[in-house]
Every structure is written in C-alpha cells, then in structure tokens.
C-alpha cells in the first residue's frame, strides 16, 4: 500500500472515531466532513472518479451543510452530563468487535484467494468516468434511475411537510427562534 493510500485511510479512520467520540455535536459534524472527504479520496484511488466528485458535492457539500444548518437551528449546548455506563460501553464495544469479526472474518479466512486487482494511480477518463457510468445508468439501470428521481421528489415534499412550522408554543428554552408563531 502506498503512502498516499495509508495517509488517506488513516485520516478516514481517525475522523470516524472522532465522529463517535466528540462530545460537542458540532465537532462531530466537522469530523464527519473530514471523513467524507477522506472517503472521497479513497474512491479516487480506486478509480471511481465520478463517485469521488459526487461524494464531495452531494455528501460533504449538500448533506453536511444541511446537518450543520439543523445544528445551528437547534442551537444546542454540549450533551448533558449524563454519561453512558461502563457496562453499556463494554457491551457495545464487544458487540462491535463481534460484528467486525463476523463481517471481515470470511475475508480474512481466505485472504490468499481474493482476486488480485491492480491499483492504477493514473486517472483514466474511461474508467469510472462520467461517460462510462452514464452509459450504464441510462441503459441497464434505467428504471432504477427514474425511480430514484421519484424518491427524491417524495423526499423533498416530505421534508417540507414535516418541517413546516405549526402553531405551537415552544417551551421556555433558547431553542429555535423563540416563541414566534
């Protein structure tokens, strides 16, 4: 594994731990942005250029901005002092370990037999480029493509309906925009 890959992977993993570990949700959000960018880098290293770019644009650019908006809207303080018990943490980490082993186990068991793939650091336009993916999308995955647009429409409408402000009084807290109707 080349140095570049190693660094990007390390950043990805570290920021992932940061998402989970930070107390302040804002710090978690920024950590996630870093994680997403790192993963985008990994995509690029794997030759999925279009995906790398759309990861940055959609995920890091749009979704995380939305998350930050909501965090700002809610104007929260840090998480209250109630800590999670040691037992629960231990159980959780234990289960996590089991899941990790379960998922990676089959792979580790046969790591000699996995098909070899060459990693190409040269960015080739044909491979994973917009044209190649577009050809696939519009021929083989046509129906799914159209349906996904429907899903997005539903998502938009749903989000608007849910987030619409109804006539409720907020409880006296500095949450939101105060008691405005």
């Amino acid at each position, binding site marked *: *594994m080349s140095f570049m*890959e190693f660094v990007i*992977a390390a950043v*990805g*993993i570290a920021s*992932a731990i940061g*998402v*989970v570990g930070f107390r302040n*949700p804002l710090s*978690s959000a920024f950590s*996630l942005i870093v994680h*997403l960018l790192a*993963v985008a880098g*990994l*995509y690029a290293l*794997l030759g999925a250029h279009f*995906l790398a770019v759309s990861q940055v644009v*959609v*995920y890091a650019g749009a*979704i995380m901005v*939305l*998350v930050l908006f*909501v965090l700002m*809207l809610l104007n929260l303080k840090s*998480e209250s002092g109630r800590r999670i018990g040691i037992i*629960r*943490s231990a159980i*959780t980490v234990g*289960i*996590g370990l089991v899941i*990790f082993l379960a*998922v*990676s186990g089959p*792979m580790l068991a046969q*790591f000699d037999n*996995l*098909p*070899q*793939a060459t*990693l190409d650091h040269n960015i080739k336009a044909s491979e994973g480029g917009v044209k190649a*993916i577009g050809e696939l*999308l519009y021929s083989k995955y046509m129906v*799914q493509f159209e349906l*996904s647009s429907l*899903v*997005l429409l539903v*998502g*938009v409408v*749903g*989000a*608007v309906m*849910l*987030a619409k*402000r*109804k006539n*409720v009084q*907020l*409880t006296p*807290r500095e*949450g939101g925009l105060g008691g405005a109707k």
Partner: protein
Amino acid sequence: MDPISSYLGISCLLFTIGGIGLCLRRNAIVLFMCVEMMLNAVNLAFVAFSKIHGNLDGQVAVFFVMVIAAAESAIGLAIILSVFRSVASIETTDAAELKW
C-alpha cells in the same frame, strides 16, 4: 494482505465504528451522522468490489445509495426538527415514553 483486501478491511472497520457510535451516542443528529458513516462504509465496499470484478455495476450501486441517502437525510432531519418542537430536546433519552 493484498491492497484490495485492505480496502474491504477499512470498510468493515468504518462500519463497526459507525455501529458502535449508533449504540453509544444519545444526540439524534450524531446518531444520524453515524448512520451516514455506515452507509459510506458500505459504499466503499461496493467500489472495492467493482474494482475487483472490473465492471462498473458496483459504482452504479453507490450512485443510487447516495441518492437515497440524500433523500433520507432531508426527511430524517425534518423529523428531528418536528420531534424537537414537541419534546424540546434531541436527546433520545428524553423521548422514551413508549415503554413498560
């Protein structure tokens, strides 16, 4: 371990970290972010497999996952806002009335 397996290993690791975060954190938005992380881990695996098999079907799958994740994030955050309006908190421990 050959290079491509290490990508899969990273994917597993990220998935597990996301899962652990899901169990441990109480803040709803952080929970959401952990879910996004798990999705990303899966996307990474898809891309790795696409590289192994030499065709682009895996990448198309990632494309669709991103689409769905976008829609889901919009609605999820809207729900969190609605809950916040009635409970005045986004800690999951404060919205725990459906119990014995």
